[in-house]
């Protein structure tokens, strides 16, 4: 019974899924529309769109890898501090004369080790992800500050390092290309590979996954390592973009990346994290701050409006879901 319905059911369900996407997504579209109407020819100008993508590229990298951690049902609060730390590390190594690529490799390694540390604490010692990554966040932060003695590193970074954050390839900033690569790979892994399927399974029901023969601990660990490396990559791009390394520069990434993932989650019926949703979340956050700036709204009111717009966007999808 019902077997023959499988295909049409699938199609209909696909349509529903798209309908649901319209919630937060409609909020996003509405926001774009309003900004476009209020500043015609400016908000949607190719130049401004390029600006937006460039502004959100770093956040998008972190949010994308954060999505993986959240797919397995955890959190990573240490990404911001890790981005600062890796940014500081790569700057210092380059200043001391290491080549650009080895320098970047070491920075990513730092990210991987930090992520490994988080992952071991959470997956093998059973700490709650919140406590563990809050603690490592504090520690990484202290390390970045201690490493630089609180100051900004800038002089002596070779020009060639501008490649990552300031170079342009085919009319798009390299940071956007890097972001696109990270996003694409993560999308592929999560949606199309056995690994991704397993990550989702662990997030869905860790006990059932364990009994189904999955290596639950290993998978959670892998997610944290990935998130550490993603944060480190973001730190590298940021240092390249600012062409200087500040020991607390990455901090705003933490809440923003989690917020982006959560915003994206509201787009999916079952509320699971999803890189597509995350991307919309990132664009919503980035587009909003860009648009409000362009509209020349008072900075403080901008904060109030930001909060309200997020709520509106999310409420829309909540209502869409309820309507079903």
């Amino acid at each position, binding site marked *: 019974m019902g077997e023959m319905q499988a295909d049409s059911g699938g199609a209909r369900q696909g349509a529903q899924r798209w309908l649901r996407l319209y919630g937060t997504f409609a909020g996003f579209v509405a926001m774009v529309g309003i900004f476009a109407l209020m500043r015609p020819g400016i908000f949607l100008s190719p130049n*401004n769109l390029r600006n937006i993508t460039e502004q959100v590229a770093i956040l998008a990298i972190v949010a994308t890898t954060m999505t993986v951690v959240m797919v397995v049902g955890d959190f990573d609060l240490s990404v911001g501090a890790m981005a600062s730390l890796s940014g500081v590390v790569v700057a210092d190594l380059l200043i001391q004369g290491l080549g650009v690529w080895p320098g970047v490799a070491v920075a990513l390694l730092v990210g991987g080790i930090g992520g490994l540390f988080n992952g071991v604490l959470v997956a093998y010692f059973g700490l709650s992800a919140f406590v563990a990554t809050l603690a490592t966040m504090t520690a990484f932060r202290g390390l970045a500050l201690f490493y630089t003695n609180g*100051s900004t590193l800038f002089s002596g970074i070779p020009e060639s390092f501008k490649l990552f954050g300031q170079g342009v390839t085919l009319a798009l900033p390299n940071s956007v290309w890097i972001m696109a690569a990270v996003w694409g790979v993560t999308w592929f892994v999560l949606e199309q590979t056995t690994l991704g399927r397993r990550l989702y399974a662990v997030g869905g029901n860790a006990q059932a996954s364990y009994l189904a023969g999955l290596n639950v601990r290993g998978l959670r660990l892998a997610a944290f390592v990935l998130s550490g490396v993603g944060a480190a990559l973001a730190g590298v791009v940021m240092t390249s973009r600012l*062409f200087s390394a500040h020991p607390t520069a*990455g901090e*705003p990434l933490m809440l923003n990346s989690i917020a982006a993932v959560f915003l994206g989650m509201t787009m999916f019926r079952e509320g699971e994290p999803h890189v597509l949703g995350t991307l919309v979340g990132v664009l919503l956050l980035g587009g909003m701050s860009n648009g409000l*700036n362009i509209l*020349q709204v008072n*900075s403080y009111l901008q904060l109030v409006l930001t909060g309200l717009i997020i709520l509106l966007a999310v409420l829309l999808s909540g209502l869409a879901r309820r309507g079903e």
Partner: protein
Amino acid sequence: APVAAPAGDAAGADSGAASVTVAVVTPYMANATTKYAIDQFEQYGKAKGWNVTVTDTNADFNLLVSRIEDAVTQQVDAIVLGMGDPAQMTKGLEAAAAAGIPVFGLDAGNGPGVVLNITSDNGQLGQETAHFLAEAIGGEGAVVLFTHDPHPGVRARAEAAAAEFATYPGITVVEKKHIEVPGPVDFARSTTQDLLTAYPNDGDIAGIWAGWDEPALGATQAIEAAGRSGIAVVGIDGTDFARAEIGKGGAFVASIAQDFDGMAQQLAEIIAAYLAGEAPASESVQIPGVLVTAENAQ
């Protein structure tokens, strides 16, 4: 009236300068200039044989009060407030006063309970940089301010700068942007990109005045990345990265160096004198800043 140095009761029978403990508390250690000033002070203090302790509360003023109380508990000989607004810590200052421990401000502020504050004149810093910017753009055009009002020093600079711009009939302050901390460089950079979009033509914006050097750096980068010309940027603090930018002769045209080294040194002298029983002449010592421009950047 000055209090006799209470060295005796804190450290017991130890003799001389070795028993002098000075506690430095600050909410802004993550800020490079604060760090520099405090490091300098620490060195001068150590040179005098003092035991200098430094505490950072990471922008948490509630904790700062606690830290002052901790210092009082430890019966230090003097407390130095590193760049925090005394208005936000009266309780700690009262505790210090009650214990007879003098509090000195290092670029902090004056207020009840603060024996003396040594500072750059924030008004002067804001006024001079604004003046330089105004002249650099020929006394005409639209100006944007990058501020952070919750920080009283930066707020005072911004007010002085606004007042200075007001004296030029050709200059209008078109926007005042609040720059978020932490992450001010990136934030200022994105904000500037958006500004340039909102004011798309050369000449729409003539200058950006930033309350400290980090946002000025971000603004400069955005302007240069966008290839816009005719916009001048000034910052405040004269940090080394600002000097480097100014030296390149780009959009970043000036900053103003606060003489933190001089401040730290002078404060150490004043404290030494105070502990020796000599009251300072006034509550406030102001050290003028030195303008950094392309000529003297390196």
